[in-house]
């Protein structure tokens, strides 16, 4: 049963620390998305990649967030330095042109 995996599942850190979240998309999916869920904003897109190339990162605070796909099996989302307002659940999703998006279990980030 193919599924998107994310690590870590939970992360508690202090303000100013670097946070790296990882995602392994479903094998064969060429598009990877990063979403963030908060009570105030709901689910919103941060960035997405197709065939490892960034297509849209307009939802991401550029000064502290960065997203990369070092290879087809790994996507990373990095926050440096982290702030309390970054506390949220971060979801990775993957898909293809003709299919729905499949979501990973999420990383619950708490920045103290």
């Amino acid at each position, binding site marked *: 049963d193919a599924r998107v995996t994310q690590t870590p599942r939970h992360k508690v850190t202090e303000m100013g620390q670097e946070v790296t979240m990882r995602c392994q998309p479903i094998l064969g999916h060429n*598009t990877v*998305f990063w*979403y963030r869920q908060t009570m105030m904003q*709901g*689910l*919103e*897109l941060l960035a*997405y990649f197709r065939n490892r190339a960034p*297509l*849209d990162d307009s939802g991401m605070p550029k000064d502290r967030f960065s997203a990369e796909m070092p290879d087809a099996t790994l996507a990373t989302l990095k926050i440096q330095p982290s702030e309390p307002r970054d506390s949220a*659940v971060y*979801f990775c999703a993957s*898909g293809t*042109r003709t*299919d*729905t*998006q*499949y*979501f990973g*279990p*999420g990383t*619950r980030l708490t920045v103290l």
Partner: protein
Amino acid sequence: GIQVEQSPPDLILQEGANSTLRCNFSDSVNNLQWFHQNPWGQLINLFYIPSGTKQNGRLSATTVATERYSLLYISSSQTTDSGVYFCASTGGTSYGKLTFGQGTILTVHP
């Protein structure tokens, strides 16, 4: 970009009841999806339904693209149906960024 609105915001049911959730969108869509977020936070795909009607067990969905709405029907609800139901769309493109509605919080009591 496209706007997605869901109603009602909250719904409380007794086990066995039926319910209808609605999703309105502001523009034509080539991609409309329904998700269930369970109490553990997992987002589960329910339907990919840019138009027409689909059924999966006790759940079914209908999208009337020309009138810009989609409905999710839950029949004979069970406590395991509790959670948040989201609809989302990529708008006029068939592929890419999903814009989510604010969700309907469903609570099913035994």
